């Protein structure tokens, strides 16, 4: 199926799923968080869709992304692929930055167990229903979620200073 056919097929069952307008016209579907579990199950189980493989599950903070209107959300991106039909699909689930909660898809694609742990660790999105949601790359007692755009670099960890005296981290792109 091509992108338009997949979108039509999904929208017939899930009317609240909307195709997103992306800067470079790449097909993306905006999914409300509440719809995600049913949609994911549908995408895997329908024989003509059969999205068997979760290529990637990641996310990014929209806080500084130039969009109109400015968005205050963390976007979780699901990249799906069907190994039998060879078609692809990308989903966006936007969760409010203040308390981002998204239902887990670990029960549908087990690959998501690790991916969701990473997104939780680095972006602070809580995945409802995840079997063991805890940090994966940073230590358990780490403060903050490093890939958030307003992340403040810690001055020390367990009493060990990260910086020499007079040195400071510059948050954000290096100018030069």
């Amino acid at each position, binding site marked *: 199926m091509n992108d338009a056919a997949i979108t039509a097929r999904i929208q017939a069952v899930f009317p609240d799923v909307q195709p997103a307008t*992306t*800067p*470079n*016209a*790449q097909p993306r579907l905006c999914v409300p968080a509440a719809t995600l579990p049913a949609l994911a199950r549908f995408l895997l189980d329908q024989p003509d869709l059969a999205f*068997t*493989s*979760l*290529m*990637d599950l*990641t996310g*990014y903070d929209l806080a*500084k*992304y*130039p969009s109109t209107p400015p968005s205050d959300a963390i976007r979780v*991106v699901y*990249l799906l692929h069907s*190994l039998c039909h*060879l078609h692809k699909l*990308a989903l966006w689930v936007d969760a409010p930055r203040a308390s981002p909660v998204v239902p887990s898809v670990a029960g549908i*694609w*087990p*690959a998501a*167990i*690790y*991916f969701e742990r*990473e997104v939780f660790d*680095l972006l602070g999105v809580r995945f409802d229903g995840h079997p063991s949601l805890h*940090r*994966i*790359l*940073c*230590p358990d007692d780490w403060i903050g979620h*490093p*890939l958030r755009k307003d992340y403040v670099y810690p001055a020390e960890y367990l009493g060990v200073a990260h910086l020499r005296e007079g040195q400071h981290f510059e948050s*954000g*792109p*290096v100018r030069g």
Partner: protein
Amino acid sequence: MTIEALTPAGELMKLSMGPQHPATHGVLRIVVECDGEVVTNCTPDHGYLHRSIEKIGECIEWPLFVPYTDRVDYVCAMNANLAYCLAVEKLLATDPANRVVIPRRAECIRVLVAELNRISSHLVAVGSMAMDVGAYTPFLHGIAQREVVNDIFERLCGQRLTYNYVTIGGVAFDLHESAPAEITRFLDEFERAMVKLNKLVTTNAIFRERCAGVAPVTADEAIAWGLVGPNLRGSGVDWDLRRDEPYGLYGELGVRVPVGDRFAGRRGVRGDCYDRYVVRLLEMQESVRLCRETLKLLPPAAKEKADPIGGHQFDVSKLLRKPPKGEVHCRTEAPRGEMGYFLVSDGTKVPYRVRVRTGSFSAAGIFHRVMRGAFLADVVAIIGSFDVVVPEIDR
């Protein structure tokens, strides 16, 4: 493996393997709970090598990130470079005016270095797997061959491990004059070495029995758990991005894809440790063939100095000051499977988000499942057969 049910429930012992254990392929720590000799639970503990590469990507300009990709997977840095560069080229191509055309000679060199690096990476993989199960010599044979590849790369770009060689728009340096002959000599030598390696390890009854039927992963499981590359093909899934979603020159070359097929014989199960091992060996043979084919296609070096391989580097870096907005996902077949870059651009010279999905990460994700019920002694064989490289997990 349902030995679990046969052992009487006794006192469980908690063992911490690593992060300094020699068989954990770097700084990987696995907490293993054992009932006697049988693993009842296994919890991998990651992050010892976390260098926040994705965060660094958000702080530096597009072309400056290439050296960091080396560090994502230093065992196959060429493939890691290539994965990122292809993704950035794909991002540029979303605006047709910005499309970067790669010179044909550069395309050929990219395939050459990627396949040579695949061979050297798989040599480490099969060598260290043999070492993990107790055979030290094959590892040295593998390293000896890998050394020749490193020498070729050193002459090519000055580096032996982290190359920073593939650039956005081409490659950094042209092949030196003697390179095709050196590569051919290596390939001939390597094929002889393979025969030796097969005698030593592959057909070795002890090794085969040791790996046969250990930690099998079915095809459906492998797909659902997101296994990629040789681990996926070891389970019998016929999928290789070089053939099925060809990039660069691979579409012309026609890659043949080996898949796991109960190579261990009677005692084997499709998708066991031995299948994953043999798939890597067959892939090396295929890489040898691809290198030879590519050498035949290699166009002669440009005579005039004005057109070296990365001749349009200047134009590319100008384009990267103002790349198109939006996101792209580009995946390539690295030795450890799919290496997928997900890039988000906000139209500035600095990436908004750089995400790399690596094969080892998802391979580590299935550990706790395949290790449950395995023997403690098999744990190292399983880690070896999945060929995890820790910097790729932790990034």
